[in-house]
């Protein structure tokens, strides 16, 4: 080995020790990033200010190469994957600089299974990696893998939601953050209500990021699937306004709303929870249609407004059709099977069909494809 190489290795080893010293000394490190620097300066490239950790860019490549080399050498020589504890410091540096190496995360998993790493520390480390790369899918996957080691009562899912929120805020269309959030929501249905508010707030700040709209549709569908509704809520103002937009003879009471949306229903034979959930969800969707219209007025045309409006409209129409055709709607037949549905018996859907049909050729085509509206006879 040449002298330059040895010097390089010694330097890297020192930098790696510096980074790990910060990680040990300060358990509350909140962010990591690579700081662009033009050239090597004769001072430590590890910068630690107010719980933020930075590494100067000139050494990142060398530190990564060295860590990578050391870990792989240990993996190859190590008798049956028995890693020594000092390996962790190389893993920390390598993954902070480049979080996309599955092998390295996998070594961490093995160390956790051998009780060589503390679960709580590992959660923190994965969160730290996400501050450097908000789209690091491996870090999200690692967090999901860690959860079964936690006892159920010690889990605070809102922390996980917070991490997703920050990551999505930092990078547009962050698929990994939003699908991680769906995974969280599937385990924490008590957060559904607050997610309605969170997503609205997020959309107002990121009007073109469709990922969030899609997640909001997922929230709505989940609410519907678990038959949730707000027991306090007795008014459905958004839904009422939505109906009154289409109908000349407006509705005002809840009874009238039900009568309009579900004219064939026998109230005595209907599951009350199911009906209330239906009203709650349709009210939510009607609120979103109004929300999209307001956004469009303020910001002008965006594809995301249009798509979300359609998704909300589709939710209402599909579920009206389903509810009307089968009162016991536990199995949901796809809308194509409902093509025989005779919406001429439903004055509201007729009016909606007519009104939506006037919003341009493209929208009309969408309505006939996805809502099964038949515009072939131009009498409407």
């Amino acid at each position, binding site marked *: 080995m040449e002298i330059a190489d040895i010097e390089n290795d010694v330097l890297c080893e020192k930098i790696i020790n510096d980074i790990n010293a910060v990680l040990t000394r300060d358990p509350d490190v909140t962010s990591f990033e690579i700081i*662009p620097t033009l050239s090597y300066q004769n001072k430590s490239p590890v910068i630690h200010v107010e719980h933020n950790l930075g590494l100067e860019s000139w050494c990142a490549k060398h530190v990564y190469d060295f860590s990578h080399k050391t870990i792989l050498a240990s993996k190859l020589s190590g008798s049956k994957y028995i890693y020594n504890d000092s390996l962790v410091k190389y893993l920390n540096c390598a993954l902070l600089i480049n979080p996309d190496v599955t092998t390295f995360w996998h070594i961490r998993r093995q160390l956790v299974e051998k009780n060589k790493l503390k679960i709580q520390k590992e959660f923190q480390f994965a969160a730290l990696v996400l501050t450097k790369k908000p789209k690091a899918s491996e870090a999200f996957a690692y967090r999901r893998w860690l959860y079964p080691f936690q006892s159920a009562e010690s889990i605070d899912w809102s922390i996980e939601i917070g991490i997703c929120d920050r990551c999505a805020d930092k990078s547009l269309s962050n698929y990994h953050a939003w699908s991680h959030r769906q995974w969280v929501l599937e385990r924490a249905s008590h957060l559904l209500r607050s997610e309605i508010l969170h997503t609205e707030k997020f959309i107002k700040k990121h009007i073109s990021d469709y990922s969030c709209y899609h997640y909001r549709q997922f929230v709505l569908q989940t609410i519907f699937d678990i038959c949730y509704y707000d027991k306090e809520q007795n008014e459905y103002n958004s839904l009422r306004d939505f109906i009154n937009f289409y109908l000349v003879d407006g509705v005002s009471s809840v009874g009238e709303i039900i009568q309009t949306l579900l004219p064939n229903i026998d109230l005595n034979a209907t599951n009350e929870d199911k009906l209330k959930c239906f009203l709650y969800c349709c009210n939510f969707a009607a609120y979103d249609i109004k929300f999209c219209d307001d956004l469009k007025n303020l910001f*002008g045309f965006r594809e995301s407004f249009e798509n979300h409006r359609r998704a909300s409209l589709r939710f209402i129409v599909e579920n009206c059709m389903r509810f009307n055709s089968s009162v016991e709607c536990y199995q949901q037949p796809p809308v194509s099977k409902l093509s025989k549905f005779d919406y001429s018996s439903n004055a509201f859907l007729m009016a909606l069909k007519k009104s939506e049909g006037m919003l341009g050729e493209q929208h009309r085509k969408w309505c006939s494809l996805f809502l099964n509206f038949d515009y072939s006879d131009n009498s409407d």
Partner: protein
Amino acid sequence: MVKLYALCVFFKGPSEGRLLKAAYDLQSFSFFQRGAVQEFMGFASKTIVERTQAASRQSVKQDAYMCHVYVRADNLGGVLIGDHEYPQRVAHTLLTKVLDDFTAKVPADQWSTGTESSIAFTQLPAYLSKYQDPREADALTKMQNDLDETKIILKNTIEAVLERGEKLDDMVIKSENLSIQSKAFYKTAKKTNSCCSFS
């Protein structure tokens, strides 16, 4: 994103733009970038004010950012940096309002000699945080119609605002207001072809 990052008030003197007051909201940038981002936004604001004629408005696009500038006939100028989703009319209405407020609180004889520390005008941070949500401007939107008939000139890059022969790269290198650290950020960002996004 719908976001505002910086709001500055300048006096456009005969030779250069004089910064009278500035406010920044840079929480969305990572910790070690904030200093450099702030310097750049200050630098860009000053550069654009100096190249905007009195009694005119411009909106200059630079990567993910939009710099809205309004220089009044009396050479008082305001610059608002946001992202391109922030409604342009609201931005310009806000600038009008801020400059009116500034004029009411700071006598005109202080403008040509004032500095950030000597000028007593502390409203900028409040404006910046309140108008993060353009809906706040609903009261203002009624004013929009009254927005003076000054046409807003749209420019697609800062380069388009510069005078003939000027180059942004040269200006960055020469600038004494930018630290070595900020220049390093500029070069790196430029290399990754995402200038000023610093990510």
